[in-house]
């Protein structure tokens, strides 16, 4: 079958992912862009006799790089071989989308404009003369309502037709005699063959896109070109890049004005504005922000826990069921103690992870995340952080790994490093099973409250660390916030579910392999050299644990099992619980733990598990994102902080109790 590649591009929040989902349905996967770690969504569908591969690109406004995910979109747009580019345009913000269209037309891309959200045009009381737009801009327009699946078939048909036809006519703006002369002059000085249209190269030079110019600097006589630019700037008294931008916007503005059809004045977005007033207010804003976060935790517990219990029961029954088979002793032990304990624990807290991803998707889809950035900006700034950092920070409560990836929206390297350093202290959902286990035994009445206190502690320590590092390494001043506020929307459930399901699956796949191999190693160390004394001090595991437990004595849990659990927690924090399960054998874990911990040492242990180290996956991603040096710093710093905090807590409480 013939295969074609489709790119979905456009400004942020125009409905790219919605359209992507509508086109590909569940036939999609998430992964990473090669070399970097920004999330990449790919999918496919078949229409008539062609198989289409679809790529959902990060949102971008221009072809100038500001952040790393923009860089990815731009790289893809300028370099890759795409058969058709679909620019998803927000019908209410048409001019900005057309700006991108113009830039990409200059690149001679094969483009279809998807005029999305046309349902909102009605409300606004306007419409567009599509035929006229198509004539003026030399591209096809398709109207869609992404979240109602309207117009998707038209879009598929148009994409199909576009693949079948050869195009050789592209939109070319006339920038006016003077600039056109300049462009021609520069093209004359470009005597090399380029993968890009020469006019595009000339415009890039005039736009002073430094990165682009650098990439071709050995091919051009930049001295001479600079001289030409200098002269025209002197004449106009304005910088040439600004002239170009203004010119483009002016032409686009003219085109849109010509094609707009005004109907009766519709309702304005009064509701959004009213809600925004409350949500971004200096007083009510933060209150609502905290309440929402707290509410999410409560809901996750009350829905997630019963499901989790059910899953655990099933796994337990499965274990019993295996006893009927009379397997060889070592195999029986490997399966029951190694595999089931390890893998079972992951599966059982999967509901919670899914719920976190779900809520995050809802916050994202409704547009609340941007408000959260505003509300937290002032506070964040006082703490030496960027308002946008609050988004990865919130995300890190779900899982540190995607949160670290999320710091790519921070344009400033310093902001990024500092945010990354604080993220491992945020209590991710992998740490949750530890809290649930211990609070379920020792703090039944105050379960939510105790868990909330740990989240808060992580947040405080993370922020303090960041402030400290900022002072030590950067004499730090965070870069200011600038962020677009998408209008409020009802969450669109298909987006939300596909999104959270894909992330959960991705997580399960990644965590699955890590945890599976972890459980095997653990079993091996517990089983040898003394198979009859499984998981005791007589085997290797106990010896390692004993060594580690020495410094843990001051924190109140100086026994080898705790040491071993913490070692495996480095592998993935969720292994702490399953390790206890394996090490304390077959008895009821809760009863056994009561013999080893007091409420005070249990809390101290939870502090330790929260802080002591980023898990392997986090460490790995830190290394990828901000380099090995910073990852190592994060590693040792958290080890130190974890030990100091739990020891302090334990000693102070023991002292108070004794005195």
């Amino acid at each position: 079958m013939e295969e074609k590649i489709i790119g979905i591009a456009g400004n942020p929040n125009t409905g790219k992912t919605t359209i992507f989902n509508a086109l590909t349905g569940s036939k999609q996967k998430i992964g990473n862009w090669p070399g970097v770690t920004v999330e990449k969504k790919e999918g496919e569908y078949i229409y008539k006799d062609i198989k289409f591969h679809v790529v959902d690109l990060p949102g971008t406004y221009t072809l100038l790089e500001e952040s790393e995910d923009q860089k990815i979109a731009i790289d893809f747009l300028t370099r890759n071989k795409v058969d058709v580019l679909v620019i998803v345009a927000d019908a209410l913000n048409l001019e900005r989308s057309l700006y991108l269209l113009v830039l990409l037309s200059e690149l001679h891309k094969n483009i279809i404009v998807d005029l999305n959200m046309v349902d909102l045009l009605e409300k606004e009381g306007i419409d567009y003369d599509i035929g006229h737009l198509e004539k003026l801009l030399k591209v096809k327009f398709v109207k869609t309502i992404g979240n109602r699946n309207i117009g998707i078939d038209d879009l598929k048909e148009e994409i199909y037709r576009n693949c079948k036809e050869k195009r050789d006519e592209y939109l070319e703006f006339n920038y006016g005699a003077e600039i056109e002369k300049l462009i021609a002059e520069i093209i004359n000085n470009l005597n090399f063959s380029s993968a890009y249209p020469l006019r595009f190269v000339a415009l890039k030079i005039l736009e002073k896109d430094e990165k682009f110019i650098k990439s071709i600097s050995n091919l051009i006589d930049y001295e001479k070109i600079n001289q030409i630019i200098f002269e025209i700037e002197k004449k106009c008294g304005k910088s040439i890049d600004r002239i170009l931008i203004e010119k483009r916007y002016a032409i686009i503005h003219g085109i849109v004005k010509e094609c707009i059809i005004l109907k009766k004045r519709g309702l304005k977005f009064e509701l959004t504005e009213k809600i925004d007033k409350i949500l971004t207010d200096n007083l009510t804003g933060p209150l609502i922000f905290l309440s929402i976060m707290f509410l999410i935790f409560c809901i996750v517990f009350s829905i997630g826990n019963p499901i989790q219990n059910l899953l655990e029961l099933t796994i337990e029954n499965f274990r019993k069921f295996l006893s009927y088979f009379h397997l060889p002793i070592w195999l029986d032990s490997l399966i029951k103690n190694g595999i089931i304990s390890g893998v079972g624990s992951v599966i059982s807290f999967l509901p919670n992870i899914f719920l976190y991803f779900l809520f995050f998707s809802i916050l994202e889809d409704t547009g609340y995340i941007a408000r959260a950035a505003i509300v937290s900006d002032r506070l964040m700034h006082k703490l030496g952080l960027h308002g946008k950092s609050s988004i990865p920070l919130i995300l890190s409560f779900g899982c540190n790994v995607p949160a670290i990836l999320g710091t790519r929206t921070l344009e400033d390297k310093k902001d990024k490093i500092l945010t990354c350093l604080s993220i491992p202290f945020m209590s991710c959902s992998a740490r949750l099973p530890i809290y649930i286990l211990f609070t379920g035994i020792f703090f039944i009445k105050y379960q939510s409250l105790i868990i909330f206190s740990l989240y808060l502690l992580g947040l405080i320590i993370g922020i303090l660390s960041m402030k400290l590092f900022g002072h030590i390494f950067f004499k730090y001043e965070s870069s200011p916030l600038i962020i677009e506020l998408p209008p409020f929307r009802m969450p669109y459930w298909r987006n939300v579910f596909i999104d959270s399901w894909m992330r959960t699956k991705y997580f399960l796949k990644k965590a699955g392999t890590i945890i599976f191999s972890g459980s095997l190693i653990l079993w091996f160390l517990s089983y040898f050299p003394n198979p009859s004394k499984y998981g005791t001090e007589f085997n290797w595991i106990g010896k390692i644990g004993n060594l580690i437990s020495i410094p843990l004595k001051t924190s109140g849990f100086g026994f080898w099992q705790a040491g071993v659990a913490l070692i495996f927690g480095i592998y993935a924090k969720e292994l702490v619980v399953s390790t206890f399960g394996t090490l304390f054998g077959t008895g009821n874990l809760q009863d056994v733990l009561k013999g080893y911990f007091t409420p005070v040492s249990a809390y101290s242990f939870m502090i330790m598990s929260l802080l002591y180290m980023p898990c392997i996956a986090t460490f790995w991603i830190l290394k990828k994102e901000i380099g090995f040096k910073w990852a190592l710093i994060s590693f040792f710093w958290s080890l130190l902080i974890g030990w100091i905090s739990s020891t302090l807590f334990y000693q102070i409480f023991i002292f108070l109790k004794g005195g």
Partner: protein
Amino acid sequence: MKRLSEVEEGKYKIVEILKPGKTKKMFNLGILIGDEIEVKKSCPGPVIIKKGNTSVAIGYGIAKDIIVEKVE
């Protein structure tokens, strides 16, 4: 003429942006010198402005370098 960080809510026109880097940031969001904007929320905290159907939140660090002029 005033800085965006100092004004109250109301309608304004962007007269100048003091640092080229910041001009680029604003332009990236489709807001140019000469544009008419509406201030929806003033300092303290980020300023929220609206141009057409686009709302943008701008932190103090950038708002203080945007010069605006009241539009009646």
